[in-house]
Every structure is written in structure tokens, then in C-alpha cells.
């Protein structure tokens, strides 16, 4: 993996971002905006699953309105994150905070899939009832914890 990181860093994209006066902070800015879209919309959905927010809205309808923004944000994160990684791959690849972040993102993905295939399958039965199944609450809670962890781990890359 390290030879790949080395090669990646030396591509014109990696070197360009690393040596530009403004590209690195500009991409970081986009990465922050992408985070706002992704984490903001998933958290609103998670809070709905917990029953703490927008309780009169149907869960399925909120999913339909919020999650496209989550996916758009995720796409921005994937692209901008990859570009930032490319510019300092050799330094970041062994960074423990970076590794924790990647692991947590993977877990968040697995968690979302499990949620989709289990609790969310019979959403129709609890969509507009005030009482949410325990599984939905657990899913919302776990998701919020995972995203806090991802944001924190990302911020800690520069500090460990």
C-alpha cells in the first residue's frame, strides 16, 4: 500500500494540490460543505428515528426528502477526501486517526445496510405512528455516534 501512496503523491494531481497556495484550503472548504450536507441530513433523519425531531413527518417521506442530499454530500466527500489524501498519502496512510476514520465510515455503511434490510423493511407499519420500534431508535442512536466519531477522527488527523 505504501508504494501506491508514494506513486499517488507523485502524480500531477497530488503534487499540484500539495504545492498550490490555494488548492488545499479550497478543497478543504468543499470537504467541510460536503460534511455539512452529509452529516446534517443523516443526523436529522437519525433524530427522527429517535423520535426527537419532526415527529409528525412520515419516516419514509423524510427518508425520500433527506437521503438524496446525504448521498450528494457523500459523493462530494468521496471526491474531495480522495484529493486531499492524494496530496499527502504517505503521511496520512499510517496516521491512526485516519485509519479509525476509514474504519468508522465502513461501519457506518454496514450499519446503514443492516438498517435498510431489517428495521426499515416494514417501515410502512410504523411510518406515522408515534411509537417507534426499538430497532429504529437504536439505529438512529448508533448512526449519530458513528458520525460524531467520523468527524472527530477526521479532525484529529492533524493532531496525532
Amino acid at each position, binding site marked *: 500500500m505504501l508504494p501506491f501512496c508514494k506513486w499517488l503523491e507523485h502524480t500531477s494531481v497530488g503534487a499540484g494540490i*500539495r*504545492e*498550490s497556495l490555494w*488548492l*488545499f484550503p479550497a478543497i478543504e472548504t468543499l470537504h467541510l460543505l460536503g460534511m455539512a450536507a452529509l452529516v446534517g441530513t443523516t443526523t436529522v433523519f437519525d433524530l427522527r428515528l429517535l423520535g426527537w425531531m419532526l415527529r409528525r413527518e412520515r419516516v419514509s417521506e423524510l427518508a425520500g426528502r433527506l437521503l438524496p442530499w446525504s448521498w450528494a454530500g457523500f459523493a462530494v466527500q468521496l471526491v474531495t477526501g480522495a484529493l486531499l489524501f492524494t496530496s499527502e498519502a504517505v503521511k496520512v496512510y499510517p496516521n491512526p486517526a485516519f485509519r479509525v476514520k476509514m474504519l468508522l465510515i465502513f461501519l457506518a455503511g454496514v450499519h446503514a445496510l443492516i438498517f435498510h434490510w431489517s428495521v426499515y423493511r416494514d417501515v410502512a407499519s410504523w411510518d406515522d405512528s408515534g411509537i417507534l420500534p426499538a430497532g429504529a431508535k437504536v439505529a438512529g442512536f448508533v448512526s449519530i455516534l458513528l458520525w460524531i466519531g467520523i468527524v472527530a477522527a477526521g479532525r484529529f488527523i*492533524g493532531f496525532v
Partner: protein
Amino acid sequence: MKLMRCLHRPSSRTVMNRKVGAVLVVTGLLLGAASLWAHHGNAAFDMTNTVRMQGTVTDFQWVNPHALIHADLKDEKGKVANWKLELGSLGMLSRFGWSRNTVKRGDRVTVEGFRAKDGSPYMCLVSIDLPNGQSMRGSP
């Protein structure tokens, strides 16, 4: 804090005020701390005093988020080691008058900076005296 708790009866108003106060204090601390930080904190460095050393540049990396100089420097005990000197961001440095050619391999330099607390040959560069006699600022 303890004194405050004794003086104020915990009416809902003072609890509220205390909450607002706490938020303001934390925000102030964060903003104050943020001005000290560039990409990451300076907590790894001993900011209470600077060290001054002489030596020869072995490498200069004009890279984001921090430029780096590697140099063989002699410490106060006469021991020579290859030091890593961390600078500010490229945007900051160019405002201080730096370019990718300001320092090059083989340059005899005098550096001043904050040492890493862990004792490793690593410092946050405050200023550097170049072979042409010019002194440059290394970080904010």
C-alpha cells in the same frame, strides 16, 4: 466557579446566565486557540522558550499543509542530528516573502524555534537566517 456557586442561589435565571456564560467562555477559548493553530495545534511544541541552532539544510519541501525543512543542526551539547523544522502554510509563507527557492540543500543557516516536547529532533520554526544574511519568519 466555587465562589460563584456559593454566592448565587440557583434560580432558573442564574442557571440560564451560567449556561450562556459557559458557552461564551468556551467559544472565546476556541477562537483564541484557533488563532494559534494553523492546520494543527502547537501543543506538541514547547512554546515557553525558543532554541537557536546552526547547521546545514538537507532538504526543503514546499508542501501543504505545512512546508518542511530538514537540516543537520548542532545542539547546545555539540551533538549533530537531522532536524525536522515545521513551517506555516504555503499561503502564509508566500506572504512572508518565501518561495520554493528561498532555502535549498546545502545552505548554512541559523534557525530559531520551539522544540518538540517529546525531545525528538523536531521544531516549529520561528525564524531562519539565510546565507545571504536575510532573516525570514517561519510560522505565524
